[in-house]
């Protein structure tokens, strides 16, 4: 402890905090209304269901990553873990490569594999002191490697009707995958609100030293958070497999950064200590509405990626402007 630094009195008003928190939901509503006004197809009930269905996998990945971001760490392992999980589940349920038919058990194994990857990332962070950025990037590569080994040049197509049905069958107009995602958000919210793990993840991002000064052993909680995140990625890998009907190494392509984007757009800070599952859910919807809306109003697909990127940067800039200080170091 060398906190001889005199901390200038900086008072956060309550109003300021709630104003900041209100940003993303307001943006979601505004963006939605703008697109709805511009395009009749966009505001059709079918399209709204499409948006929500399309958000399912991203929502699950974002649930996991949110806990890591709340701690002030980062997790880039989603793509690799999802690949490994996709191959695992597709080789364990009924498929064209072997005679396995483990059904639900296969899904459970894939999720546990995700946990194991997350746990390894966490252990590398707290025991080997590898920054989470590198630890999880490495773990992503390991995941892709494991997936490639299992893929072995022949794509496993699944024939398990239960797994395939998750993406196809509907309940109240939404696919089962969407209901799974909603369940994940609910579980994530409960963990964040009512468990020591969730609250400590939040506190670690707020002031890790204070926890240590209060006699809390922080390391096990960090490992547990990465493990929890891994479980969500594992499940997301299963969901993608269900959508594709086949196990692909690239199942998680792009989900790592999309999830970080969604979380940050929703108001979760990369420096930790702010945001949460609710924020992230809003962020996911905002990103999906944006993607869908741009198509519906006829923005050329060639423009889309760039426009989306600009909107994301603008959203984050708007979020941090009130907090800027002179000579602040931004990395």
């Amino acid at each position, binding site marked *: *402890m060398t*906190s*001889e*630094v*005199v*901390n*200038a*009195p900086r*008072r*956060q*008003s*309550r109003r300021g*905090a709630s104003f900041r928190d209100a940003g993303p939901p307001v943006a979601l509503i505004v963006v939605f209304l703008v697109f709805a006004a511009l395009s009749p197809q966009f505001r059709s009930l079918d399209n709204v269901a499409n948006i929500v269905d399309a958000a399912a996998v991203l929502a699950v990945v974002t649930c996991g990553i949110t806990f890591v971001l709340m701690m002030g760490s980062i997790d880039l392992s989603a793509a690799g873990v999802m690949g490994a999980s996709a191959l695992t589940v597709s080789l364990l349920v009924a498929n064209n490569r072997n005679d396995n038919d483990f059904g639900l058990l296969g899904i459970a194994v894939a999720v546990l594999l995700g946990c194991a990857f997350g746990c390894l990332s966490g252990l590398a962070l707290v025991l080997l002191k590898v920054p989470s950025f590198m630890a999880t990037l490495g773990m992503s590569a390991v995941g892709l490697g494991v997936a490639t080994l299992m893929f072995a040049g022949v794509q496993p197509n699944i024939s398990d009707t239960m797994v395939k049905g998750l993406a196809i069958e509907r309940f109240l107009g939404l696919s089962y995958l969407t209901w799974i995602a909603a369940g994940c958000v609910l579980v994530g919210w409960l963990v964040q*609100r*009512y*468990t*020591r*793990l969730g*609250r400590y993840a*939040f*506190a670690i*991002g*707020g*002031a890790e030293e*204070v*926890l240590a*000064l*209060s*006699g*809390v052993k922080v390391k096990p909680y960090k490992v547990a958070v990465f493990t929890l995140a891994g479980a969500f990625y594992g499940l997301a890998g299963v969901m993608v497999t269900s959508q594709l009907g086949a196990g692909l190494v690239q199942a998680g392509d792009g989900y790592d950064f999309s999830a970080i984007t969604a979380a940050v757009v929703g108001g979760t800070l990369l420096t930790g*200590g*702010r945001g949460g599952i609710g924020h992230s859910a809003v962020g996911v919807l905002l990103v999906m509405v944006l993607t869908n809306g741009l198509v519906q109003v006829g923005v050329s697909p060639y423009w889309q990626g760039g426009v989306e990127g600009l909107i994301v940067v603008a959203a984050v800039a708007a979020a941090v402007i009130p907090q800027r200080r*002179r*000579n602040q170091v931004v990395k």
Partner: protein
Amino acid sequence: MSVPALEVRGLVKHYPGVKALDGVDLVVRRNEVLGLAGENGAGKSTLLKALVGLVAPDAGSIHVRGEPVRLRSVVDAADHGIGMVFQEQSLVPNLTAAENIVLGSEGPAVRRGVYRWEVMRRLAQEQLDKIGSRIDPLARTDSLSFADRQMVEIAKVLRIEERTQHPPVVILDEPTSVLEPKEIDTLFAQIRRLREFATVIFVSHRLDEVLDVCDRVTVLRGGRSVGEVATAGAVPRELHRMMIGSTGSDDHYHENAATTVVSEEPRLSVRGLSGATFRDISFDVARGEIVAIVGVHGSGREDVCRALFGAEPTTAGEIRMDGRTIELPSTRAACAAGIGYVPAERKIEGMVGPMSVAENMTLAKQRARLAGPFVAPRKQATLVDSWIRRLSIRTPGRDTPIQRLSGGNQQKVILARWLVAGDVRLLLLDHPTRGLDIGARSEVYRLMRELAATGVATVLLGDSLEEAIGMADRILVMTDGRVATEVACPNGGKPSPLDLVKEMV
């Protein structure tokens, strides 16, 4: 009198280059409020850290109710009934007050990892009731005022009562530094209440406060306890004399080398400078003059110093160098105007630790080592080596990482940073001798004199009053963000620290 609640005997702690504690003795009686006074570097904070297990002493012993103990961690200390309210920022800002109060020892409030908010609220409410606070336990901590946060901290510390049968020892480290006068009154009422069932150690820079709230005061100087005063009837003056001790008669401050200031057009001229923590600051500094700004913690002097360098926003006022206004104050404009700044936080703001002496020395004035757009290795080598010689910087070589040098030599490199280009006209020295031993201090003082002799103007924020008086030609006393008074400080006519203290409090 019975066994003291806490006793410290001959505690010693060395840090590289500094002896922070040099055989401190301390006795804290049961149910008293003991004040701890001492200047910066007297060893107060090291002693406190040793008492809560954050610092392992090299020698000496700590006794709790007569039993010798070894405190290895905060939890250890809490088990022995010792808890500390740290200087601000020791609560998790984004948790609720209740969570902070029970943090680390949630007990029944968390069962199998699952929160029971209602139980937690009740536990926290019990603690808050002890001190009669009406804070909502479920309010987010960062939405509370500083005074309320302090109450939360005290409530949190009082939970150590549940770990021991005996009355707890509560340490308050500089609790008043961020509070408003009215909030301070509340805090003092609180301390008097605590006294009924606990023992309190109270630390503050402000002697009037120490005398006001404490039963007894122990004074530390140079890592030792130098005296003890019963506060009844005592005045700040006596305490201060003990804190300062007798000044050595040797020429520590190189006063013989002091230049006589010729008054002419001022080098630095500040008019009506205002910012978040200071208002309407006006003063001049002549060529070769050393002006010290003194004031208690919270007087705003650090911010004024940073504002002069453009590192702190200002709302009004004008800064002129040799008659020319610095437009749009910024660190870049300040550098260009020939202002150099030596920050108080050497390791964080003053230097880039893993980079070499040469890199650190040429950091601000790249021009001095460039040929066109490129670094000219030979030019740099000659330049850096010549300054290493001139300032007698002890380093294995110019390519040694600066973090391997001693504090004094690091500080010389940082000073040299402003000298290499030969265009420095004003130096802002923010605690330039913080953490340095006596020999290194003396060398920094010698350097300041030499620079003043060449016409460089200096604004000094001293580490101690002694230093300010010893070095300065003139002293500005700041209180509550304003210049309260200006004291001439010529050789042979130096004011006494007590004269200044009167103005400061």
